[in-house]
């Protein structure tokens, strides 16, 4: 079962990217406290993203003719791993680099690729994903935002919600209904690139339980778009979204969301001279190592040109489970020593990760949906 999902190695040639990333990270991130760095891929810093683009560290999987580096998924893994390990603020370019550019490359026209991908590679075109709606969460067939054809192109009406980084983004790739109704399920869905500065777009931030406002509601009131806003084929939006989600679910960001907390805790144990929790440290270290090997194995399937939907679901489900376990067991360990002082920074980091952790298994597909995908891959149903 899943016979090609086996140990793979990062090519030596891609390891040389680490020094370059470290150099940039040291200049932009070193001074940030752990509770800021723990925000990692929700931390927004457009200057940092542009600096990465200028250094050739974005668009690593994309063709050179569109400003990419043409180095492949392993190179991207190395760069992303370095950024997440350091807790660098990567939100600005994250979605564009990870999934919007590959989507445009795979399904868009050469003109669309020419218009958007070079800007993405420079860290200058920021994208968000318009999938969820008030009535369509896990069940995206329930999408009701509509795009009607006009003489000049499209007119869009409807609403998206929980749209990460939409407030700071330039464009949204939205899943909309271009024909039929929710009763038609996945038929009649299409993907459009929406310029978020177009008249009729209203973005209302939603503050989350940590006090951040990384996601928002986005309203479309007769938003007029040119005909070439359509990405790929009309009516094929669902198939394109499934391919896109394999990119979203397979990366190392699905194992490292709590790694800043893990490192802060280990530093605390070392400073306190405490060794009574070596077993827990070892258990968590082994799981991180196994997840890293699984994530590299999944990256190898991407590098082989596959769309590893089931493999990515396996890594994401197990990875987010680990990310959520960390604040739970680290909180227990620290509070099991109530007479041992914990720094304000570590305490804030612990509570930030504790509070945001439920989102890890919601964003990009819930645990229950992923397990349904894995079950289908096993031949069940």
């Amino acid at each position, binding site marked *: 079962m899943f016979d090609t*999902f*086996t140990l793979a190695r990062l090519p030596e040639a891609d390891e040389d990217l680490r020094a370059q990333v470290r150099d940039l990270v040291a200049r932009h991130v070193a001074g940030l406290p752990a509770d800021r760095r723990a925000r990692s891929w929700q931390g927004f810093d457009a200057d940092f993203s542009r600096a990465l683009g200028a250094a050739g560290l974005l668009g690593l999987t994309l063709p050179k003719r569109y400003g990419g580096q043409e180095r492949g998924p392993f190179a991207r893994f190395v760069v992303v791993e370095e950024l997440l390990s350091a807790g660098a603020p990567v939100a600005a370019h994250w979605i564009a680099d990870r999934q919007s550019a590959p989507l445009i490359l795979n399904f868009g026209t050469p003109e669309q690729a020419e218009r958007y991908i070079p800007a993405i590679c420079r860290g200058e075109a920021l994208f968000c994903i318009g999938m969820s709606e008030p009535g369509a969460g896990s069940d995206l067939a329930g999408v009701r935002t509509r795009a009607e054809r006009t003489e000049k192109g499209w007119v869009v009406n409807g609403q998206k919600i929980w749209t990460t980084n939409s407030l700071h983004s330039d464009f949204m790739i939205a899943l909309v209904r271009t024909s039929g109704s929710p009763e038609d399920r996945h038929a009649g869905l299409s993907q459009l690139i929406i310029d978020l500065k177009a008249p009729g777009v209203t973005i209302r931030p939603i503050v989350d339980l940590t006090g951040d406002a990384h996601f928002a509601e986005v309203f479309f009131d007769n938003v007029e778009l040119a005909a070439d806003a359509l990405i790929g084929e009309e009516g094929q939006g669902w198939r394109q979204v499934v391919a896109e989600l394999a990119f979203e679910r397979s990366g190392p960001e699905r194992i490292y969301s709590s790694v800043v907390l*893990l490192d802060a805790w280990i530093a605390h144990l070392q400073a306190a001279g405490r060794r009574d929790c070596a077993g827990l440290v070892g258990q968590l270290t082994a799981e991180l*190592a196994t997840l890293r090997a699984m994530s590299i194995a999944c990256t190898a399937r991407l590098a082989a040109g596959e769309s590893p939907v089931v493999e990515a679901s396996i890594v994401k489900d197990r990875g987010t489970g680990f990310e959520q376990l960390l604040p739970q067991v680290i909180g227990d360990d620290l509070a099991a020593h109530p007479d041992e002082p914990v720094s304000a920074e570590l305490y804030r980091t612990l509570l930030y990760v504790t509070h945001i952790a439920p989102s890890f298994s919601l964003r990009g597909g819930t645990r*229950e949906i992923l397990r349904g995908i894995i079950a289908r891959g096993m031949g*069940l149903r």
Partner: protein
Amino acid sequence: MDDLLEPFARLLDDVAAVRAWEAGAPCDDAWAAITDSGFLDALVAEAQGGAGLTLAQIEPLVRAIGARALPLPIAETMVARALLADAGVAAPAGPIVLASGAWPVPGALLASHAIVAGTEGLRLVALDGQREPTGVHGSLAARIAADAPGVALPPAPLRAMAAVLRAGLIAGAAERLTELSADYANTRVQFGKPIGRQQALQQMLSVMAEDMIATRIAAQLGMAAWPDVAIPAAATAKITASAAAARLAASAHAVHGAIGIAEEHDLNLLTRAIHAWRLADGSEGYWSAQLGAARLGSNQASVDWLRGEVFA
């Protein structure tokens, strides 16, 4: 690699007689066939008359043994014969187990010899009179005296070597347990439909698949280096495999219901084997303490430490 695995898997299917061995039948004919196949010297250097393969190359063979829940110490004998060849000690003809501590050694009742890690280093020990059955129903494990006399051997990380083999065996058993459970869930009908259509079952089976894949990849990580099996990678392999083993056995039984408990159903061959391998050569708790102590000795970030120590 299929050139290696396919004939080996055929050989295992030809010789396997687990129930007969557990009932006390000898394994001499099976062992003769395995010896004739030449696989036992897979890890012995070519200059010493072996195939000169690495542990990573025979990893699929170890999984094939695990998938059949074979108690014969074939993988252990491959490692033992490589250690003996390096030491210039003639290998005995029979099966050899690796005894890395005081815990009962799986398959020891089928073995003629053991490499024993005693207080004064490694020794090759002939097992006549040196082993004590456990009394567990069907078990071919036995305790081997740590001070048993034998031929002294040069130092080697015996427990880590044994641990990565256990992880590979667990990975093989995990694959078979997951397949059997998915098949059963697709065919067993209750409430008018296959039980595999119940979301509760699908959720449990998908977690089994995750544990199976994690164990496979962690075991491959543990077996990546040879002959210098690295302690942090071995620890990672055994921690992941042993922790998953208990969950996999529990879930497989939960899916199968009462029939899986019946002795005549093959499920228990796999679940008894996977529990024995989980507990042998250090459980997840033992290796977690080892790995954690090593990790706490470094002030590197976790990703850097893993890259240097586990993925070296």
